[in-house]
């Protein structure tokens, strides 16, 4: 019992550290890749780490009309909750640390926590820019939540009807890739859901075209406008960890393969191979969902964000879900 607890805590710490390292890695890659696509050279890979080190040596400035305790607490809560999600989803080819404790529904709820912390921090900083940014963050959150739920429910439903126990557990999603459970119609449906989740990712991460809450040219950084020094570093880190979370979630739901299962490898090398494969997948997902979309679009207005998610993406997601259902019904008949 005691060893279990120690192992879990050790695992949690390791996953936390691992998540942060991968976060820096992804942020660095994103900056280089984006720069290259914009005809720039871009910073070295370790630039995010250097930025962070500098931010951590800086003073926290708390505005006079802020609510200090909430203002200072928000970044800590945001980072802590972002790391907590990592404990519930498979990272680096390993099963989740807290695999017995939670499922996809929990992950969905946890995903709102960093955003809520950001909103709380924005409202408590007492700046009109931050207030507008916090309102937009809330609206964005409400907007992308529905398509995200559609994706998760569609996959869990498919697992349920395929007779797999505990369909919402990530371990069972991991063990039974959805692609193998459906016919050709279902594969189109899953591809659509895959696309929907990739489009939800930039909104979850407040990236262009969905960076309306931060909107540099409109709100001068929006929710983050009053944050500086260590608090800003924590929020930036949260953003990075959330990138890892979303990329890992996409990988876990749609590409839950392990290279060691396909290639015959010695037992010792298996974790290394899985880890490398995982990193490749995560970089690929973050490239498509973050960098590629970011360089090819202008920022949306907040009402365009809402209509994009509530109307178009939800409809597309539901269409994907219906295709999977149709595929199942036809398969049974």
């Amino acid at each position, binding site marked *: 019992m005691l060893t279990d607890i120690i192992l879990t805590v050790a695992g949690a710490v390791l996953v936390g550290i691992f998540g942060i390292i991968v976060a820096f890695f992804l942020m660095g890659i994103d900056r280089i890749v984006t720069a290259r696509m914009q005809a720039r050279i871009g910073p070295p890979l370790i630039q995010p780490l250097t930025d962070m080190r500098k931010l951590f040596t800086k003073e926290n400035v708390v505005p006079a009309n802020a609510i200090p305790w909430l203002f200072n607490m928000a970044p800590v809560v945001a980072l802590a909750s972002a790391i907590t999600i990592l404990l519930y989803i498979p990272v680096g080819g390993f099963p989740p640390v807290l695999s017995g404790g939670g499922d996809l529904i929990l992950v969905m709820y946890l995903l709102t926590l960093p955003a809520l912390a950001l909103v709380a921090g924005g409202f408590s900083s007492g700046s009109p820019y931050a207030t507008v940014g916090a309102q937009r963050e809330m609206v964005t959150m409400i907007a992308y939540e529905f398509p995200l739920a559609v994706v998760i429910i569609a996959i869990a439903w498919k697992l349920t009807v395929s007779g797999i126990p505990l369909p919402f557990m990530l371990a069972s999603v991991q063990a039974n890739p959805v692609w193998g459970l459906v016919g050709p119609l279902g594969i189109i449906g899953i591809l659509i859901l895959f696309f929907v989740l990739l489009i939800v990712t930039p909104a979850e991460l407040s990236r262009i075209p969905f960076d309306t809450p931060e909107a540099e040219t409109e709100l001068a950084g929006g929710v983050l406008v009053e944050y500086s020094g260590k608090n800003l570093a924590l929020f930036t880190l949260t953003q990075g960890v959330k990138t890892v979370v979303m990329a890992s979630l996409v990988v876990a739901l749609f590409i839950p393969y392990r290279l060691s299962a396909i290639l015959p490898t010695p037992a010792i090398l298996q974790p290394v191979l899985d880890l490398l494969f995982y990193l490749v997948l995560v970089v690929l997902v973050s490239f498509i969902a973050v960098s590629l979309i970011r360089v090819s679009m*202008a920022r949306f207005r*907040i009402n365009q964000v809402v209509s994009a998610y509530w109307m178009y993406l939800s409809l597309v997601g539901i269409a994907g879900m219906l295709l999977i259902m149709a595929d199942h019904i036809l398969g049974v008949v």
Partner: protein
Amino acid sequence: MNGDTKKKSTPYTVPIGPVHPALKEPVMFTFQMEGEVVRSVDFAPGNTHRGIEWMGMRRNPVQIVHLTDRICGICGVVHSLSFARAVEQIAEIEVPPRADYIRTILHELERMQSHLLWAGVAAHELGFDSLLFLAWRVREQSMDLIENLTGNRVNYGIVQIGGVRRDISDEQRPIIEQGLSYYRGLLDQMKTVFLDDSTIRMRCRGHGLLSYRDAQILCAVGPTARASGVAMDVRHDYPYCAYGDLNVQPVIPPQEFGGPQGDVYDRIIVRLLEIAQSIDIIQQCMDNMPAGEILWEKKYPKLLSVLKKAQGEAIGRVEAPRGECMHYVRMDGNDAPATWKVKASSYSNLMSWIPMIKGEQLADIPIIVASIDPCMSCTDRVTVIREGSAANLTKEELTRLSREKTRRLSQC
């Protein structure tokens, strides 16, 4: 509805400026917002007043030409040309035809680089940074051309009273031709990138509307007015330099884009088409450039003695990339002019912000503000400081002050 919710729905104030990432130069905006929608807007320029006119009135016209180069970081040719033309009219100086053509070429190159710079800024305001970098990379070619012709990337120092300071040699002609063909090849691509992009269209079509009537009432000039369908262009209406010899028509959004609607999208169209027009004008100038002198008088002492004797007043008008730019000069037989007044194009365009922004969303403010391509350091000519802080003047006070100034001027 109880009192509490009612209180929350009253408009709240969002200040933007004087320093804000959406603004490239300082100006103070105060927005009355209702949710994300702007109910009313007020703005206060006057944050970059540098006293250039004051400096100029203590120098002779040849020295002022170099000062005019520094009024605006982008419109160096525009201001120096405008000033030079005013002084040339007073002193009755005839500019050699070749100098007129060189002035025109540089004037159009400047327009090209200014519009490309604007295109990049507009893309950045929309959050489309890739386009910013691409537009500015393309702009480098025109900057290189200008550097090749004048020796400087900014503050060219090329215009001189009575002509230009550098000739275009035969070796430089192929370089210009090469630059022009580079832009000709890019034009279609730029139109596709800016006008066919769905996110740009979503953000710009139907936003920041300035009706034909408002554009006329508020005296908008340049691309801002032309995008609303007002066919005005100093190069066409009041030709100067070589424009009288060339075929220049005001650029109005053509029917293929739905005709002039006066929105931000139309302002993009007008500027892109003006780049094409500039290429055409430079080509015409290159083909028809006459040989001859480039200066009315090469010897400075002689030029200065002529200028010192000159008496009278004149207005130099040129079509800047942003619209009509005007320099009023009055000389009274002294070294320095008695009066020098600069009215930059942004001064006429600023008021059109108010009908454009009203009713729009907060998200559209940066692009709408940028859509008239404001140049605050060109515009700011007055700052009133009373007892250590900036003072507001009412309409009556301003009228009284302007009448006093006119009377003072007419006496001297």
